């Protein structure tokens, strides 16, 4: 299983294995990583699973679609590599990826 590192805003790091086909959001929820709220459970409707992909990995992850972009546009703090983690499906190529979580999801 690909290993993904989640870094909370306060610096706490989680190194977890996430099954291929799961989303980056599910990886966080299954490991009780608090920085992802995911109110809607992964339907791209609530914008509470925001994460910032480490720039080194942004090419592997790819870009947000229009729907996701509209939500991301409304964030108070959006970074160039911001994504909604429910829309990022984990692949073998993501083994070793690092994602950072924002101070707040609201």
């Amino acid at each position, binding site marked *: 299983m690909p290993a993904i590192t989640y870094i909370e805003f306060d610096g706490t790091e989680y190194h977890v294995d996430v099954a291929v086909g799961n989303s980056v959001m599910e990886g966080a*929820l299954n490991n*009780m990583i*608090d920085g992802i709220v995911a*109110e809607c*459970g992964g*339907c791209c409707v609530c914008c509470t699973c925001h994460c910032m992909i480490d720039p080194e990995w942004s090419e592997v992850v790819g870009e947000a679609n229009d*729907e996701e972009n*509209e939500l991301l546009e*409304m964030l108070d703090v959006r970074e160039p590599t911001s994504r909604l983690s429910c829309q990022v499906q984990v692949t073998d190529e993501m083994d070793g990826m690092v994602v950072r979580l924002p101070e707040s999801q609201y």
Partner: protein
Amino acid sequence: MEVDDHVVIIGASHAAVQLMISLRQQGWLGAITTISDEPHMPYQRPPLSKSYLDGSVEADRLVLRAAETYDKLKVDFKLGCKVTSIDARNKQLNLDTGEKIGFTKLALCTGARVRQLDLPGSELEGVHYLRTMDDVKAIRQSAKKASRAVIIGGGYIGLETAASLTKLGIKVTVLETETRLLKRVASEQVSGFYKRLHEEEGVEIRLGSKVVALQGNSQVRSVVCDDDSHSGADMVIIGVGVIPNTELASEAGLVVENGIVVDQFAQTSHPDIVAAGDCTFHPNALLKKSLRLESVPNASEQAKAAAASLCGIKKAYSELPWFWSDQFDVKLQIAGISQGYTKAVVRGDASAGRSFSVFYIKDQYVIAADCINRPKDFMVAKKLILQQSKIDVAALVDESSEIKKLLINGEQ
């Protein structure tokens, strides 16, 4: 709190899962047991009428958390058994298996059940309600051999089901007793839009239609209305709302109104019992009233407050309610509760296309919004409601003006 303390959770859905996670995060060291009358590990309910029904998602993708997560949480699941009574004085639960389980603290996440219609013919094969995964498994079975379906009830569940069955190639008729769809919860503009959407997709919508009987010979074949009309059907899905599961609480002497009464800390009238989710009647400081909500975000957020209470921490729950619905290629996002609005204004064109928002205004303040394929409007609406400042309606409905500008600090 002691290691030999024991929290028992009744229910194993969205509220229950968040509650057990929050208990551990807040340092609960004792045992946690969750009891559910369903045989399944916790699963997501919102997709049941949407992607799970239309087959685009299978059951293994509905799990709320991976099995290993519950191992890490050290939660004991008792599935497929029912709590028959709560002995609040002796802090003990009686199960239908004859077993008795003691608790130090109890959490009621009992949810809601479908409201049943007392119709002649309800027992016929092919007649369904929709609440649980097993309900939808049965609906999917029926759908395999059906060419015509009748949905009784034009609320969100009925309409989502109509859309999902249409995707499966089934000819669908929706029967609604009211004069418009979604009458209890939406404005005329939104009701009118959903009627148009469904008709454009080939669904027949019949308003003012009261069903009096289901007919067939073992298998349902037609639905009879009070005007004596017959609608042919190989399957029928009834979606006429839910009833909160409050009986265990009221029999145990807890205060119950339209739901189990809790305070902002999810505390019931019993000091060792909390409740969270669809089953609760709770105060909301933002809305300045008490209400009962059928909503996943509400279940999860209220469960966090309930877990805190059980750990002796005061964490008030007061969130802006929000909801969503997927039908065909339309994503509806609802912010706030529109009840009591004095004016509904539209940003965009409700009469054509599939993208607009309705803002509900009361005394110059935005109190709610229905956003149709407009995620940006939804995000702004939530902030507009929370910022509680008078709204410039002319700017709100002016599509040439960026909606973000209406926010205080919107220029940032």
